């Protein structure tokens, strides 16, 4: 804080009246500051690189976690930052996935170009549906997002020539990344690619969330009427945030298409939307890193529980989710700290 070293302007000017309550500590007068946007991105890169190096057997899992994290990150911009409850986020993911796959199949198989196409497709679908969706709030909004996703899924089912419908879209091979790093069978390139894309996505999301625009969207989340009274063009801001989230979701979809070399209708499914929301709630909404934690925990849990009992893994996931909702993580942490503090 700069103000800590120089004289505070608060002490220079004469306040109108002294507070009647007990004097707060000087720390309370310190204005909040946001963390530098690159910090969390670097942490993701470091953890991802460490996992990549240490667990060569689990690169497929690492890729899945990174893609899920990017998708849930996008969802957090909509649910956690903008406060719009959606159960149709898979539409944006699937749009990116199909766009990237079709682009690779019919136009060009360069992965970064395909990623850009996925970003564009997600953003385009988001802006088109957003123009209509942001007129509504709460449950109406929620139901309409489900409806939009169902429409997109049924269009994909109908357009068999383009999407392969129930068979899935396959038959495309990605060119080497940057012309040098081929997508190998062990998934070494795919995992690094996905982790790097997640780090970039997190950096971008962090910048957006901590910008004046992000602050205004948070304000709309907390109090729409008040923001309108400040002169905020509420709908325009929400559409913009929804579009940015669509771009990130499209990127996640494109990554999924490129690293799996297949896109199925499940990438547009209600189940995927719901799963992403579960991941977000698991990690905590509105803080961005919660999206990453939730995606990692959920995917790992899914992976381990499914390997122990392939039929009943959802039991475990359900149980953990219940525990998280009933006992919020910060309370669990406080309890743990007390226990540890008591022992030493």
């Amino acid at each position, binding site marked *: 804080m700069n103000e800590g070293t120089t004289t*505070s302007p608060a002490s220079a*000017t004469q306040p109108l009246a002294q507070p009647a309550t007990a004097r707060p500590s000087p720390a*309370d007068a310190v204005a909040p500051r946001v963390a530098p946007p690159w910090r969390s991105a670097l942490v993701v890169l470091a953890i991802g690189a460490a996992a990549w190096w240490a667990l060569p057997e689990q690169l497929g899992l690492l890729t899945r976690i990174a893609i899920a994290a990017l998708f849930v990150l996008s969802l957090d911009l909509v649910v956690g930052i903008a406060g719009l409850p959606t159960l149709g986020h898979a539409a944006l993911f699937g749009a990116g996935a199909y766009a990237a796959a079709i682009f690779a199949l019919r136009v060009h198989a360069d992965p970064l170009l395909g990623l850009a196409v996925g970003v564009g497709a997600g953003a385009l679908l988001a802006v088109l549906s957003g123009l209509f969706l942001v007129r509504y709030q709460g449950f109406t909004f929620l139901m309409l997002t489900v409806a939009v996703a169902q429409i997109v899924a049924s269009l994909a089912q109908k357009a068999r020539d383009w999407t392969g419908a129930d068979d899935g879209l396959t038959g495309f091979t990605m060119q080497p990344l940057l012309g040098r790093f081929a997508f190998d069978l062990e998934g070494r390139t795919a995992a690094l690619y996905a982790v790097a894309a997640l780090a970039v996505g997190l950096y971008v999301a962090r910048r*957006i969330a901590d910008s*004046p625009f992000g*602050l205004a969207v948070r304000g709309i989340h907390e109090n729409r009427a008040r923001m*309108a*009274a*400040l002169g905020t063009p509420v709908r325009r801001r929400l559409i*913009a945030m929804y579009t940015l989230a669509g771009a990130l979701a499209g990127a996640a979809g494109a990554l999924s298409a490129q690293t799996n070399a297949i896109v199925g209708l499940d990438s547009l499914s209600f189940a995927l939307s719901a799963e992403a929301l579960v991941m977000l709630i698991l990690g905590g909404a509105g803080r961005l890193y919660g999206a990453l934690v939730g995606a990692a925990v959920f995917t790992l849990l899914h992976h381990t529980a499914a390997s122990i009992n392939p039929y009943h893994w959802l039991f475990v996931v359900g149980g953990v989710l219940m525990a998280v909702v009933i006992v919020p993580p910060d309370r669990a942490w406080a309890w743990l700290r007390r226990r540890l503090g008591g022992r030493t």
Partner: protein
Amino acid sequence: MAAAPARGPDVNAPVLETRALDKRFGGLHVTRQVSLALQAGERVALIGPNGAGKTTLVHQLSGVLAPTSGQVLLDGADVTRRSQAWRVRSGLARTFQITTLAPHLPVQRQVELALFEREGLTGRAWRSIDAYPAIAAEARELLARLGLAEHAGWATERLAYGEQRLVEIALALALKPRVLLLDEPMAGVPQGEGDRLLAALDALPAELAVVIIEHDMDLVFRFARRIVVLAEGAVLADGAPDAIRRDPRVREAYLGH
């Protein structure tokens, strides 16, 4: 009271004007032919019994509700069909009867948000909110003026109720309005916290035109230089406080219960 309100003799058009404003909700006639003009620096209280249509009138002034007929003018320009956001940018700010801030945002951020909005910066999605030192400094200065500097880092919901109302005023002032509508600024504020609010009201910029809706008659007669009495949606009386106090119709409708 601070300096006597300047009547801005060089200003011809009123800063805020309504012409034959009418509002019906179905069969309910809540605003009847209200015509008012407000000059820069005026301190006007809008009073009237419950259900007289005060809040509905303020909603029409600020753009929350559209009138059934009639006009609202800001600086002589017709804004009747303009959005709330447009009117804010044209210099009309309001506070709310029920405190309606973003409860979890820190106080400082809350004020910065209003400043970003005034400067037209909330479309900027890349530079950090900490990279606008002028905005941060102005927010701190505003908070200091209202005696809230020590709480800059607090989540707004942690503030005492009266202090939250002060933040409301800070937000409105941050917009640098020329007309300020205060919807019951003292409602629900405990006795002990009222003095700071009164001081804040007294210290409002002299050139600012202020309309205050308030039930607390002590505050009304202390603050206002002109009182408009609404009854059943229509203007019953409009004049200096002493004249209003003596007006037999007003006594009957409102004061002499």
